[in-house]
């Protein structure tokens, strides 16, 4: 995350920056897929489909952003899916209990952050492997929401305003509230990552916790806050999806953790920590959503979906790898 200072961005430098971009490979793949589809499927490039895809990718985007933050800090959060379900439940139920929407949302967000903090504490203070800690939290969260709802979907919390939050009602043309929120969050997070102490320390903790500690960084605090952020975004995703589906089945979060991780990694985040960007998270989310969209449009038999998703995941990572390898070779040759 070295930043370029004035005078360094000569065309060659810029060129290398682009080529060495961690998610350059998948970006190329995406562009290719889009071009092919545009010719293959007239309804693909239509404004409506574009808005559909964008709206459909919102939930994963929120989760992927959170996941990226955790991955940068060298962690992993499997609990986002069930956290999303729990917080969605909180938002819905509380509204039904007659709380004003804002209060209900506040509770949901608080609980999301709370779960994140618990994850962080389990991992940093008790030294439980992140995989296990968040896996356990996944089960616990799912159990809680199922017990709470007894499996019955939550209904009757929808209101005019909530249709906007769900992105079902647009505010201007194709623009929906979730889109704005995603953009704002990713811009803010980008600034935080690139320009704030926290961001700096986040990357430091991720790439070398011991060195960071020696340098006087409070590693645990940073990690915990990373998980808290992930929890917060899971809560936001929960509030959003509750509005999108207008009903909350308790298992609504199932499998979302996987999508989130996949999206983050496709976007160039590394499970070894220290790498990852917001734009990457969004690219990843887009890739996953687009895959499904293309499957539906082209009319591929739905049973093939999982196979394709799996292949896309591995393919994307390979593509990123390949591109970076290539550019590194170019770069070295250029240097010597």
């Amino acid at each position: 995350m070295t930043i370029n200072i004035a005078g360094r961005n000569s065309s060659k430098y810029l060129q290398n920056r682009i080529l060495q971009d961690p998610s350059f490979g998948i970006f190329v793949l995406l562009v290719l897929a889009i071009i092919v589809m545009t010719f293959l499927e007239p309804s693909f490039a239509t404004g409506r489909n574009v808005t559909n895809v964008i709206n459909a990718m919102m939930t994963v985007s929120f989760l992927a952003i959170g996941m990226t933050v955790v991955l940068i800090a060298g962690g992993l959060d499997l609990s986002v899916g069930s956290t999303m379900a729990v917080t969605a439940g909180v938002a819905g139920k509380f509204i039904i209990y007659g709380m004003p929407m804002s209060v209900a949302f506040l509770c949901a967000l608080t609980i999301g952050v709370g779960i994140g903090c618990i994850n962080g504490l389990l991992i940093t203070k008790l030294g439980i492997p992140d995989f296990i800690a968040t896996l356990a939290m996944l089960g616990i969260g799912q159990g809680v929401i199922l017990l709470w709802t007894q499996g019955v979907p939550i209904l009757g919390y929808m209101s005019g305003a909530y249709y906007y939050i769900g992105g079902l009602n647009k505010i201007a043309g194709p623009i929906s509230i979730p889109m704005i929120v995603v953009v704002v969050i990713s811009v803010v997070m980008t600034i935080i990552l690139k320009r704030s102490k926290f961001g700096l320390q986040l990357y430091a903790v991720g790439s070398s916790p011991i060195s960071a500690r020696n340098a006087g960084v409070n590693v645990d605090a940073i990690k915990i806050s990373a998980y808290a952020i992930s929890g917060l975004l899971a809560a936001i995703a929960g509030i959003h999806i509750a509005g999108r589906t207008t009903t909350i089945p308790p298992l609504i979060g199932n499998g979302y953790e996987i999508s989130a991780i996949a999206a983050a990694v496709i976007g160039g985040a590394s499970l070894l920590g220290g790498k990852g960007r917001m734009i990457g998270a969004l690219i990843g989310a887009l890739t996953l959503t687009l895959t499904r969209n293309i499957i539906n449009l082209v009319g591929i038999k739905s049973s093939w979906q999982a196979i394709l998703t799996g292949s896309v995941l591995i393919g994307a990572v390979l593509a990123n790898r390949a591109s970076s390898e290539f550019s590194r070779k170019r770069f070295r040759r250029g240097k010597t």
Partner: protein
Amino acid sequence: MEEKVGLGRDTDFSRRSLLRTSALIGAGIGAAQLLGAPPALAVGGTANASLDKAIKDIVKGRTIKVGFTPPVLSENFTQIESAAWRKMAEFEKRFGVKWVWERQAPVGDFNAVQGTLGIVQSWISRRFDAIAVCTGANFATVQDLYKTANSKGLKVFQFNQPAELYPESELATVSNIGYDNRWQSGYLAGTYLAKALGGKGKIIQIWGPSGSDWTRGRRIGFDKALAENPGIKVVGEADGGYVRDKGFTAAQDLLTKYPDVNAIYGENEEMALGASQAIDAAGLKHWDGKTGILTIGADGLISGFKKIAEGKLTATVDIGGIDQGQNLIETIFATVALGQTVTQIINNPTQVVDKSNYKWHQAYAQWALDTPRKYGK
């Protein structure tokens, strides 16, 4: 062959359902008469003191331990369970039977079949009196399990299970309380849709996860309806995974490709509701009787009825969940407490519900749901 059987069942179920629905008015009791359960139990509304006394004497206030395991927790199965509680409460009052009710659903999605097997097995070793199962588990697998249950003297009942897909002779259950997915759900939906569209139009189908028995059954029925109405063309299909947001996304994608479709069939109500949302999201028009996009699902859930009232959902097939729940108890009581014999397949009436008739279906479901949660946790 398949056709023949189909038609056979077809006609005779419509006869039943006619009678059944007429008998239904009130509190949905009495179906038993036609279905093998003893007439005595049917005389619900006008309880007959001496009869109740006689049965009380046989029952001797015994306790019946029932295990109830749906494939997944959902609104549909909650309605069935509540209906069962209604009947249990009634029988407890009339015949002095005590109930121990344990509901255990495998955690996860429709594929969490290992869970179901484990649950049933545990009930077997705990010597329950009756076990009521609905599962996505494979037919052959569960039959083996049922056999062990029978050998231990437990009575196994299936509910809401597509038993019709398998030879009756191979069923190892005491009885299957349900309905016929082919002719009572898929076929009904298809024909209703065809009739409404005047025999011609383009439609989209959103199915549950491929391979499930419910999907297979309903598909057979729907295909038959399509065969009878060549004017109806299926332009697109997608997997909605039985859940709303997936159904929503799938419908959205298909609608962008075919904005000019006349109808969307959701194999279950959740997905149909998702489709109806997609119509709103796409700024398209809901079916108003002549124009717009018609949406039809199947289950008969309160949430569905609400949407029908709002005009967001054109129709749904009420698969008689409430009757299933009550029949289940009637049958268990008849076989376990009174030692009667019942028919292997007890199909409950189903009906396409739309604006014209949703009110009593809704009231009926609500009546069941309003049961005091005496038996459930």
